[in-house]
């Protein structure tokens, strides 16, 4: 059996149509979009066309969309950029407890190194945040609240609209990290009402190193970089034309197959959860059954440590993840599951299976056939599992 990739929330293979769309902007139309000449003009047109496509995907104006290197950079510009702008008037920010490290660590940095007040908004057992929690924590000094649209570990889709309302009533800005939602569910910035939104290409069959930040007309922020006047000085640096073209193509494809993908992935993940629970006892789904990005299946195998499970499956050619992949190779307990109040013993046995367009029922059947051997070995060696 070829290796099976069930880690699509970490990253995805680039769609060949996307590669084809990008190639002309590597060697052939290689111009610098800032150049006045013919070469530059071609690049500039490609860039602006891409911007229009991406903007239309999230229903914003092209003038409100800034290309970046990806989710982490977009999150950083949104948080650090508004903090810098508002620091003389307001000094309080809030972030969800289950945010990606790109948001959490950035907020912690402002708090620990720059004297900002920080509140971490609690979540319920499925990862949802209530407007009441926001009302309890928000103050007149709050300049920004950052809450992700879909969670990378559990797939929880946050109902942002009431949360955005609660924040904006207090004249604070709302940022959402939509990296795990974009291309998988409808993302409409007008409907959501958010002020800032981060997205990236590589989670949805696009290239790594390209993303975007939506900044609503009228929202002010300071740049992190200084240089030329690219991206209206909000993100200087020679534009990544091939990347932008790739991101646009990625979103076009995602748009065209969103419904079909959603249906397929819902069927596959429902099948998978049911099957796993039928071959093994004491397996729990972390996160909600409904309002979840269906490709994300976070399962706890009680009595088996997530780290060992992950390695055991890798040795069988099955690629999954425990916790977030962004912790430099060493596995740490998941802050997401901890925030959801999941029992420590159960959260230690958590594994994230994230499916994608190439996932087949046959692959899942193979995983289901291998899981009992790996899990039972761990349970037998476990001092705490009650056999």
């Amino acid at each position: 059996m070829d290796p099976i990739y069930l880690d699509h929330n970490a990253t995805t293979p680039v769609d060949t149509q996307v590669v084809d769309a990008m190639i002309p902007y590597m060697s052939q139309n290689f111009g610098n979009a800032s150049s006045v000449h013919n070469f530059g003009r071609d690049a500039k047109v490609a860039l602006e066309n891409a911007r229009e496509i991406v903007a239309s995907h999230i229903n914003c104006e092209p003038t409100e969309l800034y290309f970046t290197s990806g989710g982490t950079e977009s999150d950083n510009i949104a948080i650090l950029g508004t903090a810098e702008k508002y620091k003389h008037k307001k000094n309080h920010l809030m972030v969800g407890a289950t945010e990606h490290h790109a948001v959490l660590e950035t907020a912690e940095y402002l708090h620990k190194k720059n004297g900002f007040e920080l509140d971490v908004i609690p979540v319920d057992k499925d990862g949802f945040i209530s407007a009441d929690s926001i009302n309890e924590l928000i103050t007149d000094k709050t300049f920004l609240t950052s809450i992700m649209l879909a969670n990378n570990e559990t797939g929880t889709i946050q109902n942002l609209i009431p949360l955005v309302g609660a924040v904006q009533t207090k004249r604070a800005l709302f940022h959402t990290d939509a990296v795990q939602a974009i291309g998988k569910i409808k993302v409409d910035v007008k409907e959501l009402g958010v002020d800032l939104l981060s997205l990236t290409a590589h989670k949805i069959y696009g290239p790594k190193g390209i993303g975007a930040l939506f900044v609503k007309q009228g929202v002010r922020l300071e740049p992190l970089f200084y240089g030329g006047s690219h991206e209206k000085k909000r993100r200087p640096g020679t534009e990544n034309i091939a990347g932008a073209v790739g991101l646009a193509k990625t979103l076009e494809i995602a748009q065209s197959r969103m419904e079909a993908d959603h249906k397929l992935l819902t069927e596959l993940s429902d099948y998978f959860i049911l099957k796993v629970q039928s071959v093994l006892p004491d397996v729990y789904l972390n996160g909600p059954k409904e309002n979840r990005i269906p490709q994300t299946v976070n399962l706890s195998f009680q009595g088996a440590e997530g780290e060992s499970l992950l390695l055991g499956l890798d040795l069988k050619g099955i690629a999954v993840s425990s916790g977030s992949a962004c912790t430099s190779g060493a596995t740490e307990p998941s802050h997401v599951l901890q925030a959801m109040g999941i029992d420590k013993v159960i959260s230690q046995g958590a594994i994230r299976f994230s499916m994608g367009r190439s996932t087949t029922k046959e692959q899942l059947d193979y995983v289901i056939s291998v899981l009992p051997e790996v899990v039972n070995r761990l349970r037998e060696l476990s001092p705490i599992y009650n056999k």
Partner: protein
Amino acid sequence: MANKVLVAMSGGVDSSVAAFLLKEQGYDVVGAHMKLWDYVEVGGDIYKDGRCCTIDSITDCRVVCDAINAPFYVLNMSRHFRDTVIEDFVSEYDKGRTPNPCIQCNSNVKWTEFLRKAEELGCDYIATGHYSFIEQNKNGRWHIRKGVDVTRDQSYVLWGVSQEALSKTLMPLGGLLKKEVREIAHKYKLRTADKAESREICFVLDDDYRRFLIEMAEKNNKSYVPGEIVHADGRVLGQHKGTAFYTIGQRKGMGISHPTPLYVQVIDVENNRVIVGDNDTLFKSELVADSLNWIAIDSQSEPFDALVKIRYLHEPSEATVLPQADNSVRIVFKDSQRAITPGQSVVFYDNDVLLGGGLIVE
């Protein structure tokens, strides 16, 4: 199916070559790096080179494993390491003893937790880059024998490993000289071929254990209490900064002036005193050890003669080991030994075979 082995890789040349040799011998090799501590906890600079547990050394392991086509993982054991090795290190100094954390790590992390991880991954063995042989002797016991390169012998820190654990351990470098190991690494272009030797206490980055103890104490809102430095004849000679900062036989750094050189004789925690005296009085011919573990022989009831080593850099000396009723041993040396230090390990050999060991109590 080939036997599967989990190789403990530090990022150094020894464990790299160990992994390589096992692969050559047909084992199904999996490499793993134990992440034992982090910089937030122990202080120090993550960007410094040449340490284990750094991103750079992890990268070295990764590249070596890729070259030999073995999967590689980082295993986070920092919580376990802190709870066993680091806590023991601090508390031993508090008790006026001089610990050897490598022994704690081997007994309570490598040959327990790491071995458990190996079993979890379906591995039959673990392997390390120690220059020793592991053999089953005619009594059916698994023993450790010094490797061909006696200058690299680390059997002293292995006395606490259980029989069960030894039976599942491979040490492929036993028959090689360090020079040959480097040659193999060069020949097969392993990235770690020229890496410098690792150090003794991995988590004390600047080799200043006193700085480490002070930082750990500050984190726990604890402080060391100064007291008197007293001559064996009763004269008070000066002040110490806390008994934990002194070890038996120490001469430098005491801040006292005396016409003849003075050495730490006794760390008297109870009375918060450090007792000093002449070099001559440091020589003793007896010690008592407990927490014993037997390697080549089963636990003994009758006295026996052995070569006995009392610290890492100590030439094994002839002695008689006298087992006591309370599971301790009394050891009587033929010639008296300098600076026998409570907390250090005492290890017994029959020529180059490790018989067993324990912790010096007095």
